[in-house]
């Protein structure tokens, strides 16, 4: 465990140094992360105003609060690993990683966490600025803020494990972009990124409840906004734990099978 902590500490320094080299890229990446929720925010606020003040109980100020918090949650749980694996497998850059006496997932986790830490302050400044412009209605409660911390960590873990596992599809096909596209479309719709899930028709809400997407973005957002009861929160955390467990089992199986393929066809 101490050895692993040492690796994380070093990986943290390496990632930090690499990221600082690309300050402009970081800013562009940050803008990308802000623009998408901002577009939905503007669209839904306009819709609610033209619909006489609210849509499905959401006022313009509610939408503002929802999309600003969602922007932060998405930033905290986001991974880019699915874009990377195809390159790693095709270019063979995975091979040096496999020669190291440590599982390659650790450097990905350390990488991801480091980049979040570097960019989070910028994100928070943007969120506060957007707050001044769009006047969000925040009705959060203290217990929800406390519960948000484990919930967002679980959300990150679930999203990371699922996306890392899906990224391993690159072992079987080097054209993974079709699969990635499908995943991101489902994510957009069922996670609550495009609209609060409360606005979806009942059957779709049921599907969203079963799928993992909501638990990685929509659920922490709703919690922080004070839209959930303690029971709903505990249920959500149960769903997160279930998806994390399932994801970890699946990841182990897929990783082993993937390595077999990789080492059979030419690393």
């Amino acid at each position: 465990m101490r050895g692993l902590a040492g690796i994380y500490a070093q990986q943290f320094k390496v990632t930090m140094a690499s990221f600082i080299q690309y300050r402009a890229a970081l800013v562009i990446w940050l803008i990308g992360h802000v623009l998408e929720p901002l577009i939905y925010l503007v669209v839904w606020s306009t819709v609610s105003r033209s619909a006489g003040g609210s849509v499905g109980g959401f006022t313009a100020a509610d939408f503002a609060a929802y999309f600003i918090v969602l922007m932060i949650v998405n930033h905290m749980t986001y991974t880019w690993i699915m874009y990377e694996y195809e390159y790693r497998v095709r270019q063979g850059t995975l091979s040096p990683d496999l020669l190291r006496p440590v599982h390659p997932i650790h450097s990905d986790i350390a990488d991801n966490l480091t980049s979040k830490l570097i960019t989070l302050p910028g994100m928070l400044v943007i969120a506060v600025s957007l707050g001044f412009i769009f006047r969000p209605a925040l009705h959060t409660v203290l217990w929800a803020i406390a519960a948000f911390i484990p919930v967002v960590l679980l959300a990150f873990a679930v999203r990371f494990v699922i996306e890392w596992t899906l990224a391993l599809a690159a072992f079987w096909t080097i054209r993974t972009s079709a699969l990635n596209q499908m995943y991101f479309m489902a994510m957009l719709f069922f996670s609550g990124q495009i609209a609060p899930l409360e606005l979806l028709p009942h059957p779709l809400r049921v599907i969203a409840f079963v799928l993992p997407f909501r638990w990685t973005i929509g659920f922490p957002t709703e919690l922080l906004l004070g839209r959930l009861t303690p029971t709903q929160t505990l249920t959500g955390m149960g769903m997160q734990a279930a998806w994390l467990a399932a994801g970890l089992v699946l990841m182990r199986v897929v990783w082993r099978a993937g390595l077999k393929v990789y080492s059979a066809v030419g690393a």
Partner: protein
Amino acid sequence: MAISPAVDIHDLHKTFVVPEREGGMRAALASLVRRRKQEVKAVDGISFVLSPGEIVGFLGPNGAGKTTTLKMLSGLLHPTAGTVTVLGYVPWERDRGFLRRITLVMGQRNQLVWDIPPIDSFELNRAVYRVPAAEYRRTLDELTELLELGPLLKKPVRNLSLGERMKCEVAAALLHRPQVVFLDEPTIGLDVTMQRRIRGFISEHNRRHGATVLLTSHYMADVEALCRRVIVIHHGRLLFDGDLAKLVERFTSHKTIVVSLGDCGADLSPYGEVVSCTDGDVTLRVPKSETARVTGRLLADLPVMDLTVEDPPIEEVIDRVFREELS
């Protein structure tokens, strides 16, 4: 008690299945429905044993199966058949104890992080391989001295030249003092000075730490400077395993003399077999024992502007081994 071998390969096979089709639109459409596949035997039943502390040259033309074998030895590839043990481990089980004791340096693959100075990547390796702090400092000092890394350690990797980067790659690969070192073309693309330095370093590392080294190279000079023993493979089969001296003596019975005369007018066939003449440079092939005599005669008889005597390239030696089907 007999010393257990560092590397033990027995009847190793690796067959790749690769899709194949004819060129053209029709074949492309046909391949949508039914894909034709072909089996390629990259390694076809090779066996050898390396003792601890040996430096062995692993030779063969492109596509002979050298890299495939090195990948199987380092655990990146799973063989189709046969057995391999390295330091008593089965490589593709990728035991951490095994990975901590070996290294594989490949010319094109890098483990240095592109945007930061090598020293940061070295620190990461120290943590990954759990090298104790005092030992790390000692090894780093040693590597810095032997490879003259001092001025390079703090420059971002992307600002280093190919040779400088290769030196740092080699250093990164050896920081954990592996007992078994697999080197795949460690001097490819480097100038002569840099080649010599890397070579000197490999030999010094072997001497100081008793590491077993298996090295592939297209440069005869690397092999001659480092390896007493060579293993030659071609089409995945073992063709020669023994003393380099014997291989060279036996299969480079000729030398190549390049004479610069300014034009291709003169007939040099009395001096040896004329291989080619381009831009006034005549290439002659002469028996090894005749080299000194022919060189003297050429210099005495003709207005020679320049003259060089070379061993035939390694491919030619290997080709000769192959043609004579020595096993």
